[in-house]
């Protein structure tokens, strides 16, 4: 039986009195280790991150290029092609495309999640802590936006932002002399990222708000208040740190859902700018070849699903571990 000490709920009678802060995390880690699926997920996540962000750039240095076409060598089977995983419909190296696609998908999802978390904490925290009418009104606005078709928000953000991103990219290329290829490659995922985050932060805001609202009712916050601590201090020293648990859980589960969003956008034709690719786009293009050539679908799809599984199980595991209600067993 794992002990739980959560400042958010009154300490349960059986748990031994332990120090606050550190034990929450050591406890959590202990519980996480018990969940083998979550641990496996964590390992896979780390491996895939290494593959996409360390191995791929090294391979690129050795001369592998994800966008070099060779129309005379289309659909090379596994074992052929420079990367060894064959080539796609335009004779491009599949290994590099999958890895670079993964970079984009993961970057978009991770960056969007970071933005989501930041925005959500600020907005939800304020709404929850202020409470009352204003807090309620802030939440109704979120509800209204949340019910909007996310496609509208995505297209809107993309159109508004892409112009400015171009200016920014040109600045880096002209003034700092960065290579235009790499700047543009990452510049063109910014609109997409912001668009996804522009929609995603709403749910985060809701979660943070309910957490903040329940926290601000807690005895230790009441105590802090009665001690005359400033709002800022209460917010930053007492409420925010205690919301970390739900936020981390939610963030881990948000990453895979953003990877999925990106894929769905690719299906509609609103994904990343070509010739660059993302997993969503590779799978969508690959699915068109389902009857004729399975490798162009299978390779990205397997990696994609594996990543989603891994993130989801890691997230679920973290929830089990960090949310003590579900772990008194």
């Amino acid at each position, binding site marked *: 039986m794992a002990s739980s000490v959560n400042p958010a709920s009154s300490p349960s009678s059986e748990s031994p009195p332990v120090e606050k802060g550190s034990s929450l995390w050591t406890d959590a880690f202990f519980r996480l280790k018990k969940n083998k699926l979550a641990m496996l997920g964590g390992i896979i996540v780390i491996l895939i991150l290494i593959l996409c962000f360390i191995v791929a750039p090294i391979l690129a240095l050795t001369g592998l290029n994800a966008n070099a076409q060779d129309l005379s060598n289309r659909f090379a089977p596994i074992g052929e092609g420079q990367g060894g995983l064959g080539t796609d419909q335009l004779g491009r190296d599949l290994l590099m495309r999958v890895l670079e696609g993964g970079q984009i998908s993961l970057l978009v999802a991770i960056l969007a999640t970071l933005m989501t978390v930041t925005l959500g904490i600020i907005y939800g925290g304020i709404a929850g802590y202020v409470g009352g009418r204003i807090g309620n009104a802030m939440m109704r606005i979120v509800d209204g936006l949340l019910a909007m078709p996310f496609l509208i928000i995505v297209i809107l953000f993309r159109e508004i932002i892409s112009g400015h991103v171009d200016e920014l990219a040109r600045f880096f290329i002209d003034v700092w002399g960065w290579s235009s290829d790499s700047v543009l490659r990452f510049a063109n995922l910014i609109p997409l990222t912001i668009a996804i985050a522009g929609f995603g932060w709403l749910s985060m805001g809701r979660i943070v708000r309910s957490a903040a609202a329940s926290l601000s009712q807690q005895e230790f916050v009441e105590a802090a208040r009665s001690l005359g601590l400033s709002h800022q201090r209460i917010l930053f020293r007492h409420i925010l740190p205690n919301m970390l648990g739900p936020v981390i859980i939610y963030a881990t589960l948000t990453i895979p859902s953003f990877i999925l969003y990106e894929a769905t956008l690719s299906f509609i034709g*609103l994904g990343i700018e070509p010739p660059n690719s993302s997993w969503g786009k590779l799978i969508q293009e690959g699915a068109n070849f389902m009857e004729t050539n399975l490798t162009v679908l299978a390779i990205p799809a397997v990696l994609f699903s594996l990543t989603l599984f891994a993130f989801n199980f890691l997230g679920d595991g973290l929830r089990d571990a960090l949310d003590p209600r579900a772990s008194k067993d």
Partner: protein
Amino acid sequence: MLRTTFYLILASFLLVSCETRSDVEIANEENILIVGNSNEPKGLDPHLVSGVLESNIIRALFEGLCVEDPAKDSSSLPGVAMRWESSEDFTQWTFFLNPKAKWSDGVPVTAHDFVFSYRRLLSPDPNWPAKYTEMLYFLENGEAYHRNRVGEILCKNKPDFPLAWDLLKGANFNGDKKLKLESFAEQEFTKMEEKDLAKFKAYLSEGGALDFKKLTADPVDPSQLSDAEKRVFFNSIGLDKLEKEHLIFLKKQPEMIEWTEAVPPEVRQEVLDLLIAHHEAGKPNLWDQARVGVTAADDFTLKLKLRGPVPFLTEITKHYTWYPVPRHVILAHGEINTAFSSPWTRPGNIVSNGPFQLKTWRTNHLIEVEKNPHYWDRETVSLSGIRYLPIKNSYTETRMFGDDQLHITYTVPSELIPMAREKYPGQLRQENYVGVRFLRVNTRSTPFDHPQVRRAFALAIDQKAICEKILQGGQKPASGIVPPFGDYQPPELIHFDPARAKTLLAESGYESTSSFPDIELLTTNSDSGLREAEALQAMWQEHLGIKVRITQREWTTYLQKQAEKDYDLCVGGWIGDYLDPTTFLEMWVNDGGNNNTGWSSEEFEALLSKAENTADVPTRMEILSQAERRLLDDTPVLPIYWYTTNYLIRPEVKNWTPLLLNNHPFKFVKIEKP
């Protein structure tokens, strides 16, 4: 609850299992053809649609004067017209209508229906959103009526008018298009750029400044303007569009608008009087005065008078814009030019004269037509109905064909062509199609204001590789913009030549590719478009060393960006409306609605109008080929390939033979029971 659900699902499975025959087997017994039709039609009013998929349905519902031959291109069979004859110079045609031709409610189709239809399509009202009015410009005075050229209609056709129209037409009736005064509204005359100033030169002979505030006031008071300003004001609008007060003012100073020397002062006054009288009469519709070249000699004789010789007129009458629409039904649901608010095309209301009539229309689901019991040639019609499925996803469509759910697919995606060839031998059709895929070039953007750069980009496209490696549908590299068909043999103008492309680029003054401005290739968000764009991107990179960015936009945004010339290069295509090169060439005239490249050439337009007045076919083709050469010398458009149709068709479907326009007449189609 779980138990009930389980039983429910089991029951639904059992219900299903009663039917083990495929959709096609059932349809074969019912004699119904199931066709993939790619999308939900925008509408069924033959005058308001402009797409291929709508025309597939309209062709079954309506019938024009002539009917497509099921097996031969450029050949016309009797439709509503039993027979026809033309004058020797092909400018006057008489169509003798079949008295047996009926609308699907039993009302006879008469020549008056045709007159009404053509009048409807040509409606001059700005609220009339017809897309394909130009198709009727072949009729004499058709364009003048549609564009509401009041002066021309009144002066040309008035019996006792003292001056011939040819001498009068040099006067400024239409307004000077260069002088868009609204666009100068915020400008100060003294600070104007040279090229803008040049536009006003002609009207500023005595010098003087212009006050744009006064010129764009609402309303403009001419008595407050200087003479130079008056000239600019009147000439910018033109006689046809001037208000009554302005025309009255002009009577005092007729020299304030351009006339030619040939127009004597008393004629000027008479023109102005005619126009003022028209305003005073409340600007009535001018159909009766316009003398558009369509008349009903009697109920079953239709006479057409054309603006020039059109030897291929019967070809054109097969286009849906030339079909009759039911006068009695349209007028029962609205005015002649009531567009979208009229419910006459809705199921239950619509009445048509073709081999079929509308049975069901469910959005995004199904359109079904059934045999028209009143059709004059119902013995020939073999099918008892057609079902059109709006299958947007072409992969699903091919899979449905494989599962015996469709007789004919709309297309086969290029990815599945190798599979289709192998799995459905003899059922995959790859046929020539009069259509061309090209890139529009924005000739007003740098670097494409250099013709050499445009040509270099054209020559660096490895068309053959795109056709054979990517599309695989039998498409042919396009050496020009008009695909080869009939009497027209296109000149060899563009072919892949990377060495020449490089030289051209060097000649253009852009030495290194690093000094090249950013170039954006605009495309839609379709998969096939993207693959092509990616291939083009790689080709220019390889052969010219130039990086091009691909911008994908949804359809309507793509169209808008194109119309606003907010692009550098843009993927596009064009399907011929009838079998004549002009259908591909006329779009590139100045201000043509589909030009969008900013390019224009008076020489090119002169060649087109020369062809318009030439009756002799070989000479005409020669002139048109000169026009095409002239167009591609400047290369405002980079041809990529000529289309083919790729589709799957079941063997039991008969009388469906290759046709260049792919407008298969459904009345002859048969399902042969195995």
